[in-house]
């Protein structure tokens, strides 16, 4: 499917998807409550078949926290970028997609470790790089560390 067809197909699944301008990929933002149901359809429906999640990124947008899913279909070769974001900086949480794409298990642990975003129903949500007793989440824009970060 080309991007125009994909766009219509996704609007049929999630009418409140908010499309963003991007030269490379079809990019859209959806409400977090719809994430898991849509991800399931994107993976399972014959004409979509997004079976390869090639990147999962967490971003701190200062006001919001965002998670980006880059996915591709190995059968149809089309790609898209799915985004969810929340304004809750104290207890940010999204549904996990690691039951759909197993690679998400490690990537979500990384996002939790470095940005403090929790993933509901994740089987093993622990820090992956930093120590268990590390304070704070370093990729947050408001993170400060006077010992390890040298400001020039």
């Amino acid at each position, binding site marked *: 499917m080309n991007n125009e067809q994909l766009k219509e197909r996704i609007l049929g699944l999630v009418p409140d998807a908010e499309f963003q301008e991007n030269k490379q990929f079809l990019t859209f933002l959806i409400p977090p409550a719809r994430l898991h149901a849509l991800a399931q359809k994107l993976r399972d429906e014959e004409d979509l078949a997004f079976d390869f999640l*090639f990147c999962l990124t967490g971003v701190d947008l200062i006001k919001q926290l965002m998670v980006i899913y880059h996915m591709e279909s190995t059968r149809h070769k089309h790609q898209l970028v799915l985004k969810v974001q929340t304004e809750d900086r104290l207890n940010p949480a999204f549904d996990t997609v690691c039951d759909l794409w197993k690679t998400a298990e490690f990537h979500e642990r990384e996002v939790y470790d470095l940005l403090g975003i929790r993933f509901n129903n994740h089987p093993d949500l622990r820090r992956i790089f930093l120590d268990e007793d590390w304070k704070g989440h370093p990729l947050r824009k408001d993170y400060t560390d006077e010992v390890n970060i040298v400001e020039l």
Partner: protein
Amino acid sequence: MKEVVNLPVKNIEEEEYHINMGPQHPSTHGVLRLVVSLQGEIVKSLKPHCGYIHRGIEKMCEKDTYPQIIHLTDRMDYLSAHINNHAVCMLVEKALEVEVPERVKYIRTIIDELNRIASHQLWWCSFGMDMGGLTCFFYGLRDREKILDIFEESFGSRLLHSYYTPGGLMMDIHPNFQKSVKDFIVYFRKKIKDYDDLLTGNIIMQERTKGVGILSKEDAVSYGVTGPSGRGSGFSCDVRKNHPYGVYDKVEFNEILMHEGDTFARYMVRMHEMHESMKIIEQLIDNIPAGDYSVKMKAVLKLPAGEYFQRVEAARGELGVYVLSDGNKTPFRMKFRSPNFSNLSALDHISRGGKIADLVAIGGSLDYVIPDIDR
């Protein structure tokens, strides 16, 4: 007379126990710790503990300019340093809409492939050593030295090059470059036969790898196992074919696919890939167009606000670079989708039910580089 005390003997075959493999263990190829849960010598489950060499490269990138970031990417997967540089350079060029000269594309493609061969040579020699054949280690390093000599001749460094810059190359290739590369290919074509004689045909090695650590195609896609490890399971994931960059669309080469998904298949994919890389280099080395080795770039590179993504085929799989720019000279957020990180996530799944000795072979065939996992 002394009384004989019968101490209770625990049956090690029935009870589950844990062994720490690493962080200092030769077969983990770096500082990776695997907590292996065993019953007898059967692996029940396995938990990788990463982060021993986590340097926060993504956080550092937020404070660095794009030309500075290139130097950090060398230090992720240091065995495919050129290819990591290539990803960032292409991303910056794409964002600034700069078209690099054909000469640059040719040279970059040739050097990427030389880098891939060097990386596979080091993989082969350490894999042989994991299997108990120390001779492999000497053979592999001896031949890798030839490539490092070519690199040294052309741009002075052997491991962490940072040779590519946004817009081109740091300097032109050495006048001897073409001859050295052609000599190397003649030399290595002969030597790679030794590799097959020494290890590929070895019955002990085959017994230890065939049918061991099977990863199905579905799981390879789901775990995001890319590169030679994914192609050993039949997952067609070669970025050079699917999303060509450089001059990969102008050369003929095969994407090596094996369908067994076991350790031996992953081994064979890499062995064939070395031949394919030599084929690519041969098609390009005599046709490097004349021209500039770099285009004039601004002194301070500011990417227009927006999101950019660049995928390349590193020696171990797909490297993705994501940049969210707010229009400044430093990225707002930079993310590296490193191939080894995803490949490692499959290790637990494929080593379950095997012997602990198989774990060494499986780990060797996944060919992980720890600084690329931890970043």
